[in-house]
């Protein structure tokens, strides 16, 4: 909208997208907008994350870790926050900083996954060329009571669709957005993220395994 600065302009568009998903969700009430579930390794994970004990190999200590695909994120550095699973990094289709998952336990001890972009060791979001670190108060998607489902979240940033979460098993997670399919191998703590250009209005399907059993979650 003319007259509004970019942040407020973007926010209005995001609200419209949320409203669209809400309306669509009411029309198809069996579909869930956001997935939450508890990984099978809940106790171990919660203890590890709450204690800040994410495996060092996964948080990317040492030399920069290359993102899973492409080389647009050559500047990827270890995150300042030890709960950021750097090895989960995938490139940004728009050429911005790579997308990574932060795995942590909230105050109630529930497992949570937050997605963001990593630049200079900081987790944040880049919009219109400006990187802004996520505030400490920002939260992610947290596990619900169902211990037999993986923790999965779907976010839309502009025209990107970001599917992320904490898989229970280390088998590849298959993410389908519309007719596009991507297989992602979970890394430390089961973290995975897949980023699609577009797909905001498309159905998202995530297939993963929990103790060897395939689970399918759909969104939108």
């Amino acid at each position, binding site marked *: 909208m003319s*007259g509004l*600065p*970019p942040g407020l302009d973007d*926010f209005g568009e995001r*609200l*419209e997208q*949320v409203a669209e998903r809400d309306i669509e969700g009411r029309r198809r009430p069996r579909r869930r907008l956001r997935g939450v579930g508890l990984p099978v390794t809940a106790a171990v994970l919660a203890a590890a994350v709450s204690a800040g004990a994410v495996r060092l190999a996964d948080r990317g200590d040492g030399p920069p870790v290359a993102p899973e695909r492409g080389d647009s994120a050559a500047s990827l550095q270890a995150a300042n926050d030890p709960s950021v699973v750097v090895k989960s990094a995938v490139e940004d289709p728009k050429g911005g900083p790579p997308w990574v998952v932060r795995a942590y336990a909230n105050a109630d001890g529930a497992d949570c996954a937050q997605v963001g972009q990593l630049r200079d060791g900081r987790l944040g979001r880049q*919009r219109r060329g400006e990187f802004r670190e996520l505030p400490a108060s920002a939260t992610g998607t947290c596990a619900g009571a169902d211990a037999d489902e993986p923790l999965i979240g779907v976010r839309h940033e502009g025209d990107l669709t970001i599917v992320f979460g904490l898989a229970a098993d280390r088998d590849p997670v298959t993410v389908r957005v519309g007719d596009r399919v991507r297989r992602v191998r979970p890394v430390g703590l089961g973290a995975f993220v897949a980023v699609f250009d577009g797909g905001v209005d498309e159905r998202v399907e995530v297939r993963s395994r929990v103790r060897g059993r395939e689970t399918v979650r759909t969104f939108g």
Partner: protein
Amino acid sequence: MAAIGAIAPQPSGILEGVTWRSRGRTSDEPLIRRSVDDAKAFHEFYRAYVDRVVVFYARRTLDAETALDLTGETFALALERRAQFRGATAQEEQGWLFAIARNLLLAFWKRGEVERAALERLGCDAPEGTTADLEWVERVADLPSLRATVRSALHELPRDQAYAVTARVVEARPYRDLALELNVSEQVVRARVSRGLRAMAQSLGDRAPEDLA
């Protein structure tokens, strides 16, 4: 500097808050009601009010970034609660929106932090505080001038009241700490803050909300 802005005057032409303006609307039908089944109507609703909501907060907090965060939560709550709107006119719609804004502002003053629960439930971040956004808020809310006015009113207070107002309202220090430091009762500190805010409000041509002290 959170609450001092709350007692600042509201120059006409900049902030109407709850004063109805049609803003080019050709219909009196509430957009928020239409938005229950029409996402674009919610975007239209947002565009119709966002500047006034931002200014409402900016002139009461004197902080552009806080104003953006509060604005984000306001519209997230409006989105969540839009089906609960029972009004029939655009004017009632505006009153409904600013009732949400006033409640959030009171919560902000009480807790000293911006509520983000609705944004988090919706999985939506607050508006980005880009440089352009922050400069825009400063300009439309006329914050530099307002800060100078408030500072001037603070300097006109007796020293004990000015100190109490600054320590309590600007630095958000607990009454108990101030009472210990000044070797007076909490009641005395509260009275100084209250008298100081009233004097500032009088000086600024407005009344201080009782919630502040």
